[in-house]
């Protein structure tokens, strides 16, 4: 099964990066949730925050979200994987 390899033990670097950065951006870090699923070699990371914090993650003209996606891509590249960030609102 494609979804079998999820979260066996350690947290992936990409997920760690999202958690560290997003917790620093929001007012309610304890409400930050990141889940990771693997689909055909692509890691799909879903990010949820407190509703009031969503705007901080997106930023003006989506610039914060875009910077977060770049950092995700750079981290995946460093580890020879591919990752995609889905911001859930």
């Amino acid at each position, binding site marked *: 099964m494609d979804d079998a390899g999820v979260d066996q033990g350690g947290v992936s*670097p990409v997920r*760690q*990066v999202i*958690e*560290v*950065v997003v917790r*620093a*951006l929001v007012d309610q870090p304890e409400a930050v949730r990141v889940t990771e699923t693997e689909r055909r070699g692509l890691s799909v990371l879903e990010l949820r925050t407190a509703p009031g914090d969503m705007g*901080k993650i997106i*930023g003006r*003209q989506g*610039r*914060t979200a*875009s*910077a*977060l996606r*770049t*950092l995700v891509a*750079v*981290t995946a*590249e*460093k*580890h020879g994987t591919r990752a995609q960030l889905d911001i859930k609102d």
Partner: protein
Amino acid sequence: MSLTSEITEFLQSVVAAMGMDLSPTVEETPDGTRINLEGEDGGVLVRRDGEGLQALQHLTATAFRRQLGDDRRIVIDCNGFRKDKDLELKQMARFNAEKSRSSGMPQEMGPLNPYERRIVHLAIAEDPGATSESVGDAFMKTVIISATK
């Protein structure tokens, strides 16, 4: 804990989460605080014209916006990549000022982001024979350098 050490600690945890081995050096300049991340792992941050470094810069400035306020700047560098680029931009600005004097035609630079435009404006401000002006209404703007008569 000082704001600089708080920011340095944040950067260290991001870099560690990314799985990179980089050590921060802090330098206080008249222009703000410069944190240079040094190490062989830095290549991935400066790839594609420093795209990753730029993202890290934006995320850090956003996370600490409230504490930094309007007048404190933070610049994140990696193996001096940005320092070299800033110097190049400054030289390019001076060259364009000279060119506008010799040709009598205003010279365009850009499109540049706000950080880059600031470097150009500061370089031109040191030159009594030229002025600079940003044009455009987007995030990236063109800077026009003209000789003063």
